[in-house]
């Protein structure tokens, strides 16, 4: 429950600290104290939030009447068996005691800001005759609940987008750029939030929440889009254009125009569209199996480890090729590079047209066929003596064919052993493939390294097949 209030409280905490800092003008800057004498398990905050939520629910039914606290006290005892009614009273007393906050406001036609105070900080109130068994929300308390909802997430952003339409309808044109900027900022914040959720390890619960509420989020995006579109339509009605002209004629210094307002809305629409795409991509990645997050790595200790066990030069080379600073090794030749290097008196006589013997080309054996004709018999003979792992096969030299590496073809035999069975012969048994976990670790001559699970191919006589 407290979690829903986190954005609201977290955003106000340091401002209240600043208000209460007691810092004197001109004194050296010091960091605020981190000694917050709160309950280490957040007990009182939780109780306060529970009470506000409870009163908020009751307020909808009671319509401003006093709410008895006995039901709430019973609920608290279930949640925290050790607490007493007196503890609840402590929370009610704290939330219903007004505190004074001092603000500063600008005074028209004066350069000096003026301070003023407010005591409208009590979230609850009790009856005047001091009955302690009941209380109700103050307007400030209702606002606090509303703010905690609005600050919760992006699902409520369309309310802000609708204010754009209202500002146009009421002719508050000077508010429009700021309202558009606010919605655009909300869009970016939400976009960044889902980006972070994808990247950070350990946020599975949050991702699950996004998945469960996917339809709500999509609806929120559609609502914002619809609000911005209707704002753009409204801006171009004859009535609005006329009103804007009148508004501008009264403010000759204003930098606003129909064009600038239109551009603000167009940019906002593009922003919503980008968010829609980003959200779709986000959902696709959350639901796909390929998403992987990687946590922290102690690179300083890894550097020490590599002083003990320096990696093989081939492995370092692979790491640097993957992540190090690279450049192109082969410069592409441009025509200007060949100027004066080529003979210009080329023979202009037409050479005879080349003839291609397509029929012959199609009859050339494929690489797999060449591989099988070279190694099939050797492999089958070896299989009769026992299973062969991929590592064994490479060591036996079956990786090379006419000087070329044929790893694809060799692995292909493990992927589809039926290649080995010659239809002209009676099958000698069943070919079975399995794997040995982490058994493969082989350095190839070309510098590549094969590492991971090893493949195992075995010829099992039919009679022992289960």
């Amino acid at each position: 429950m407290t979690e829903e209030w986190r954005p609201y409280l977290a955003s106000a905490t340091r401002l209240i600290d600043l208000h209460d800092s007691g810092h004197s003008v001109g004194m050296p800057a010091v960091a605020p104290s981190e000694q917050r004498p709160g309950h280490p398990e957040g007990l009182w905050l939780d109780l306060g939030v529970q009470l506000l939520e409870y009163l908020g629910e009751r307020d909808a039914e009671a319509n401003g009447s006093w709410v008895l606290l006995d039901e709430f006290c019973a609920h608290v005892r279930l949640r925290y068996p050790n607490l007493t009614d007196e503890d609840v009273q402590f929370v009610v007393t704290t939330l219903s005691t007004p505190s004074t906050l001092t603000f500063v406001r600008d005074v028209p036609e004066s350069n000096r800001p003026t301070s003023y105070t407010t005591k409208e900080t009590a979230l609850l109130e009790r009856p005047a005759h001091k009955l302690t068994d009941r209380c109700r929300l103050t307007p400030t308390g209702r606002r606090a609940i509303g703010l905690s909802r609005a600050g919760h997430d992006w699902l409520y952003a369309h309310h802000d987008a609708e204010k754009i339409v209202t500002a146009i309808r009421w002719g508050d044109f000077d508010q429009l750029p700021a309202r558009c900027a606010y919605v655009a900022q909300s869009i970016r914040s939400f976009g960044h939030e889902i980006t972070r959720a994808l990247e950070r390890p350990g946020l599975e619960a949050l991702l699950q929440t996004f998945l469960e509420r996917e339809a709500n989020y999509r609806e929120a995006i559609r609502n914002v889009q619809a609000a911005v579109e209707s704002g753009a339509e409204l801006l171009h009605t004859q009535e609005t254009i006329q009103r804007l002209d009148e508004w501008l004629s009264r403010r000759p210094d204003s930098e606003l125009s129909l064009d600038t307002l239109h551009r603000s809305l167009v940019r906002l629409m593009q922003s919503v569209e980008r968010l829609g795409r980003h959200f779709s991509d986000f959902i696709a990645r959350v639901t796909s199996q390929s998403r992987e997050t990687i946590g922290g790595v102690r690179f300083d200790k890894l550097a020490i480890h590599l002083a003990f066990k320096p990696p093989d030069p081939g492995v370092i080379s692979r790491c640097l090729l993957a992540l190090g600073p690279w450049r192109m090794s082969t410069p592409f030749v441009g025509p200007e590079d060949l100027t004066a290097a080529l003979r210009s008196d080329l023979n202009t006589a037409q050479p005879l047209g080349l003839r291609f013997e397509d029929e012959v080309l199609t009859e050339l054996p494929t690489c797999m066929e060449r591989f099988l004709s070279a190694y099939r018999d050797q492999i089958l003979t070896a299989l009769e003596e026992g299973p062969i792992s991929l590592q064994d096969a490479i060591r036996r030299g079956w990786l090379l064919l006419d000087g070329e590496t044929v790893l694809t073809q060799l692995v292909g035999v493990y992927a589809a052993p039926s290649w080995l069975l010659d239809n002209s012969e009676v099958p000698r048994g069943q070919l079975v493939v399995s794997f040995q976990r982490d058994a493969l670790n082989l350095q190839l001559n070309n510098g590549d390294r094969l590492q991971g699970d090893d493949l195992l191919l075995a010829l099992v006589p039919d009679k022992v097949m289960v």
Partner: protein
Amino acid sequence: MNMEDMGRVYAFLLAHRVVETKPAVRRLREGERDVAAVLTGADSEEIADLQTFLGAQGFTLIVHDDTSMPGVPTGGRVWLLTRSARDNPPAFLTVDRIHQGLKIRASETNQTATIWFLHIWLNCLALLYTQLGRGISEVSRYQDAIFRRPTLEEAVKHHVEQVRRIGVTGGAAPSVVQTLIAETGRDVHRRVGNFLALMCDSGLLQSIGEDEYRQTLLGAIEIAQSFNHSLATLHPGDDVLDNIVNIADPRVSGAGMPSDS
């Protein structure tokens, strides 16, 4: 996007690896505006074609905008050419500049340069990730990954000092010990300077002020994409790293060579 456009985009990406509509902390490069206009005007099918073309060479084209990635200016877009994690890098790609970049004496070998690069690089990554408590996949925190050159120099000197303390007798490899402890005077200063110039030139780091450097979005994406297929293979496992305890302070019990157990 016709073939001419594609050629122009391809050439620009190979040369600079990044195209931005509104670069946040640098000026537009020559031709970048035109290339960005081509990419902005391309429809999703054309971008997919370009991605296929680049993918066949071992590259990946990544696109971000202000909504998907912090640090991209409002309304801006960025396209990044990254090395594909799963495919082999293109054959025309070389890292031999590391050898030239990290050598400070004509007599030094490529092996010396590689050892220096690897150890400075890991200390740099410690500043970009470990010290920030940042996970490898947390790309969007690239803007937080800022360090000052003297900080990296100090980290490298501290690391060299640790290797010196361990020494060959403590179990360190002779090749590494001899290379790292041979440094004299301002060698580390020069090598770190060369390292930073190399990384900035490759678009993996960015100079953002006097002696101040930041990881680029390209650098962060490449690490997140390829870590598991590259540097992770050097990682011996957390239990082995746990055994490396405060080697700098030999009074601490258990300091010294880590075991594989």
